[in-house]
């Protein structure tokens, strides 16, 4: 199903648009290279964009699964690590404060901001020991960075504001081979680490005590998993902005289709679903309001979320089983955050307190 979806949307992404290249002529167009207009458009614009979409989606999906498994929480999303807010800050600050920077430094700033946000979360998360404490710290760091971004947004003039807003939504427009090649070194670091950490993840979801009994140092493993997620997310957000909800949706989809499997098998599926979601969302993003580009992030939120909800709800017993496994919160954890009030009925989940791009959007 993923393969079919990916193939269909890839062909659509490559052939639709101006100029329209019929599917059977695609290979010829690429082989012709830069001698014809169609060849240039396909090989210089559409192929890198497609590659970038699938790589970004795969990274976000895998990072989402790593986070959700390591923190044992179905609501852990990459946006909560402060990585995307940091990257947005790195993009917005030079625009608004009117620094004059050489063009070579600008992409580095976004990556620097993303690394700053993620690193800050990791550093502060050293205090909190339990998974939910880590999530809360991530939310706090994201909110603080968001506040800085809000100050910049209020100060910005109309044009800068448009640029920042588009970046915040996550857009793939006008990305070239340079952006794609910039991603490879990061992937080379992250992929082996992912393979190494997948078995540990399936142990971590048993709970800290069981994991310790099996010989895994839970704290250290969790921090390592977080670091891997940061390495996966940072370059992607730096290049195409925080594409919303992919890191949330992809792991849930992969679990829904294979409820019985473990983290090791979910990981590739989650990456594949992430890629599929972004590639599919990029087609309407490019074509819906043509010639105006719409950000892919808006489409992942608009199409992806209802589709995911419908899937998860319609599944009957299968879906229910999947939901039970995914939404299993830490047992016996019905402690309200506040004192004095009667406790809530069930196990509460972490605060989704970032009033950030989610609300800003």
């Amino acid at each position, binding site marked *: 199903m993923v393969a079919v979806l990916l193939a269909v949307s890839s062909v659509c992404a490559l052939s639709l648009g101006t100029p329209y290249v019929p599917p059977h002529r695609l290979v010829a167009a690429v082989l012709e290279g830069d001698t014809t207009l169609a060849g240039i458009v396909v090989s210089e614009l559409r192929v890198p964009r497609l590659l970038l979409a699938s790589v970004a989606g795969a990274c976000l999906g895998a990072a989402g699964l790593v986070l959700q498994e390591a923190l044992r929480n179905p609501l852990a999303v990459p946006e909560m690590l402060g990585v995307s807010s940091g990257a947005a800050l790195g993009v917005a600050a030079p625009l608004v404060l009117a620094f004059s920077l050489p063009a070579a430094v600008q992409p580095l700033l976004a990556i620097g901001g993303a690394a700053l946000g993620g690193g800050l979360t990791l550093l502060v998360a050293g205090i909190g020991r339990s998974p939910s*404490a880590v999530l809360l710290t991530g939310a706090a760091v994201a*909110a603080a960075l968001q506040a800085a971004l809000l100050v910049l947004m209020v100060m910005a003039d109309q044009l800068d504001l448009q640029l920042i807003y588009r970046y915040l939504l996550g857009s793939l427009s006008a990305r070239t081979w340079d952006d794609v090649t910039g991603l490879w070194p990061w992937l080379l670091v992250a992929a082996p680490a992912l393979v190494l950490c997948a078995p540990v993840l399936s142990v971590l979801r048993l709970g800290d005590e069981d994991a310790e009994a099996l010989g895994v140092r839970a704290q250290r493993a969790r921090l390592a998993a977080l670091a891997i997620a940061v390495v996966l997310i940072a370059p992607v957000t730096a290049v195409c902005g925080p594409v919303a909800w992919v890191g949330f949706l992809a792991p849930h989809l992969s679990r829904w289709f294979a409820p019985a499997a473990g983290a090791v098998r979910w990981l590739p599926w989650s990456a594949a679903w992430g890629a599929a979601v972004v590639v599919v969302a990029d087609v309407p993003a490019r074509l819906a309001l043509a010639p105006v580009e719409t950000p892919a992030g808006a489409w992942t939120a608009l199409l992806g979320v209802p589709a995911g909800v419908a899937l998860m709800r319609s599944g009957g017993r299968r879906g229910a089983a999947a939901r039970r496994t995914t939404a299993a*919160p830490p047992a016996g954890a019905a*402690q309200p*955050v506040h004192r004095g009030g009667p406790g809530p009925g069930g196990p509460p989940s972490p605060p989704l307190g970032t*009033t950030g791009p989610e609300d800003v959007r």
Partner: protein
Amino acid sequence: MTRRFTALAALAVVCAAVEVVAGRGMSPGVVWEVLNGGGDATERHIVFQLRLPRLLVALGAGACLAVAGLVLQSALRNPLAGPEVTGVTPGAVLGAVTATALGLAGWDAPLAVVLAACAGGCAGAALLWLLAGRGRGDPAQTAVHGVLVSAVLGGLTAMVLLVEPGELGSVVQWLVGTTEGRVWEHWHLLWPWALVWGVAAWLLAGPLTLLRCGDDIALAAGLSAHRARTLALLCAVALTAGAVAAVGALGFIGLLVPHLAVAVFGADLRRSLPGAALTGAVVVCGADAAAQLSSRLLATALDSGRLTLPVGALTACLGAALLLLVVRRTPSRTF
């Protein structure tokens, strides 16, 4: 208990005084002179037409958001059910933005904005209600669905802003949350709305206290839990929509102030509901005063006139600090 209320009221008065004095361009002495009937026309205009309505709007919006948060948390029995998480705030923002983009509302017609924000907030809450379906009682499920609803509404807002890119500059204050440039018109719209729904929330305080204890106890005490919850949700949506239409999506107030109020005034809503209103007013007003003071200091330090600190940024920082505090104090607890 009375002493706590008095202390909080005194704090509110102090915050209000600081807020009146804190703005740019006038020294405290001049403000005092103007309040005593002196000053020239410009100074009188600044104090009476700009600063006083701003102060009142900040107080009213803070109270509205805090009460809405407390009502939501009690009705859904979920400590995380702030207005942001239940789709009410994103819906209200969507309504306000759509009305502005369609040209139905603008700065000359604040009433239309309030109505549009209210409709949007109701739509957001209704969407969550439909989506949650049978799993309504489960706080974790409600939170998941609330996040999803917020995502969809946020995507819609983005789409509206993409179709009408020229409006982005004029709606950014709803997205951020600021009290810049609020005038008497906003206050005249806010206070009747806030008063009506605030009184409604106060009348619901008893049933809500029962709902906090659980549906079984509420039913045993003779309360029609379903009807009380629906009324409470309606009340919370209306209060949030009013506040969002006045000051925009102020982060964290609706989520954290109720916890503060419950910690100070106890879980009996008949006392903690007014307490929450007072606390919310103090927090927003104090944050606004602090934002004005610090942006004044920063502007003189960095020598740039453009720098203004929106109050939304400051409340987000406050929320972050409080979250970190919670984590530090209970490092190993699962929430």
